[in-house]
């Protein structure tokens, strides 16, 4: 018998936790860069179209699958998928839902720990003594481990371990006692910090506090439409990819959160609300902070050069801390705390969602209590994350991100939409979506889920194949090859554990559905 008898404390807590799961650092760092590189203002058209045709349908599907599996006491994708069909191999497709969460958490917690470190350094005034190159070098030194700007040895490791302990502790407190509380505090604060920074960014004036352009010049550049780009397939591919990764679909964490719902709880309105909240943070807030501030101090050409050289992550960690210093001693500290604070809340609400399926699996299949299961997850992340910390500059972090945070999501989503719409059956699936629904989902979504969404995900996957081939055949240091072997080994190991758990279930007479 499973020890897993948890449930959500409140509906608002669930929606905020789900929105927090979706909202990540990419909302602030990836979206504006994608928009700039793919048609500016007109990017929103393919972006929102993909949200309606792929993002929302996948949210409906994952919420429904999760609640369906939860009815049978499953809280992770291997046996949620298994409960939906008599075909045995689907549980091994569900392995992706454990693998992705574990491996993404391994590098994501490191990224999250940077935000904690940068909050600390904003508070103690580290950046106020550095020039532009000094702030950029701070990041390089920080991630090189054995070099330091501040004199704290191995501070990246220290902040990383602290961050891991914090995540694990919150996970060990459970759904309502830990995750929900963090979401209820973190999401409102994230939105508040985002609104304050967005107002500051768009009110930047030429000549004031060292700015060479208006903040609105950045908005102007970001939102000026290039309608010709709408007819470019690569723009649609970028929009579909952005929708995919921003919503945290194809991971297995949404299934897990939804599996703690009751049989007649709504999924349709909850999915809508959480999905649109993510869009608000991404489009309204994410588009109004990084680009306007960067354009304000570097102009359009300088911003484009920085984006091409360092990407969104570079803007967020190498450039903004320096630009905040132009706002005076008090505002610079506040801006640093608000910026890295909102990134921290975006990060931790996502990393907690990654831990929940692993903890749920250990509870369901091996009768572990919540606390040891959470600490086991923390230990696994520590081991698996070590290569990304030690070999960050050799590209191991990016390698994890590519295979686990990109390719794996698309593969799993493609399989799950086929399972839901074609194997489980769209009629049963449509009934699941509408069971207990507090809104009427337009019937057109039934056909979108059956035909359009699988085609769109297939389009994303096929469009990614040249990149996958280039990644496989590229020249990389041995650390990158070793990390690939490690990830493959982890996937196989999880599949073996799932197989063992299945045989254990049969032996104990516990069928999956």
């Amino acid at each position, binding site marked *: 018998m499973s020890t897993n008898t948890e449930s959500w404390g409140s509906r608002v807590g669930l929606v905020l936790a789900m929105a927090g799961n979706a909202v990540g650092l990419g909302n602030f760092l990836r979206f504006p860069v994608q928009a700039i590189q793919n048609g500016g*203002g007109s990017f929103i058209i393919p972006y929102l179209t993909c949200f309606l045709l792929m993002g929302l349908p996948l949210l409906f599907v994952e919420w429904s699958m999760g609640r369906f599996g*939860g009815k049978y006491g499953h809280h992770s994708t291997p046996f949620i998928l298994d409960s939906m069909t008599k075909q045995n191999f689907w549980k091994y497709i569900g392995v992706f839902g454990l693998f992705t969460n574990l491996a993404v958490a391994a590098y994501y917690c490191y990224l999250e720990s940077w935000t904690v470190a940068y909050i600390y350094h904003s508070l103690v005034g580290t950046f106020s003594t550095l020039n532009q190159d000094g702030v950029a070098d701070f990041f390089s030194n920080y991630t090189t481990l054995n070099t330091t700007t501040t004199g704290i040895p191995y501070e990246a490791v220290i902040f990383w371990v602290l961050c891991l302990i914090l995540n694990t502790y919150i996970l060990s407190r459970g759904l309502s006692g830990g995750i929900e509380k963090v979401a209820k505090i973190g999401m409102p604060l994230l939105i508040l910090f985002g609104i304050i920074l967005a107002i500051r960014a768009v009110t930047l004036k030429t000549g004031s506090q060292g700015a060479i352009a208006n903040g609105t010049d950045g908005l102007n550049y970001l939102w000026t*439409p290039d309608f010709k780009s709408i007819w470019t397939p690569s723009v649609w591919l970028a929009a579909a990819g952005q929708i995919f990764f921003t919503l945290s679909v194809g991971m297995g964490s949404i299934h897990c959160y939804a599996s703690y719902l009751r049989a007649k709880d709504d999924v349709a309105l909850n999915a809508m609300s959480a999905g649109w909240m993510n869009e*608000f943070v991404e489009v309204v807030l994410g588009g109004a902070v990084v680009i306007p501030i960067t354009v304000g101090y570097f102009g359009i050409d300088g911003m484009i050069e920085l984006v091409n050289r360092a990407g969104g992550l570079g803007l967020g960690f190498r450039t903004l801390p320096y630009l905040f210093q132009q706002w005076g001693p008090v505002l610079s500290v506040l801006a640093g705390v608000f910026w890295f604070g909102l990134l921290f809340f975006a990060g931790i609400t996502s990393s907690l969602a990654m831990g929940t399926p692993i903890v749920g699996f250990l509870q369901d299949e091996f009768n572990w209590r919540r606390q040891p299961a959470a600490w086991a997850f923390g230990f696994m992340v520590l081991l698996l994350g070590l290569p990304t910390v030690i070999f960050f500059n050799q590209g191991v972090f990016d390698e994890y991100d590519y295979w686990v945070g990109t390719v794996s999501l698309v593969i799993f989503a493609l399989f799950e939409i086929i399972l839901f719409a074609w194997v489980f059956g769209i009629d049963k699936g449509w009934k699941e979506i509408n069971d207990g629904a*507090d809104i009427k989902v337009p019937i057109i979504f039934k056909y979108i889920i059956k035909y359009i969404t699988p085609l769109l995900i297939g389009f994303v996957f096929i469009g990614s194949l040249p990149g996958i081939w280039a990644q496989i055949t590229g020249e990389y240091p041995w650390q990158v090859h070793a990390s690939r072997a490690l990830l493959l080994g982890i996937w196989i190991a999880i599949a073996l554990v799932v197989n063992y758990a299945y045989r254990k279930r049969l032996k104990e007479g516990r069928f999956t559905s």
Partner: protein
Amino acid sequence: MNTSALIMYLVANITVTAITIYFFFKVLNTPPKSHQVDDDGYPDAHGPKTFDAT
């Protein structure tokens, strides 16, 4: 901002904000359901279904 950028910015931001607020308020204002009867033939949500394997 030029006119086309301003239009794109306002339309996108107002649309996304309005829909987000609408659905979130709907979540806040929808009364909770009674869960006394789960009459759909499914087992209880909390705890795995257990069968006699024989």
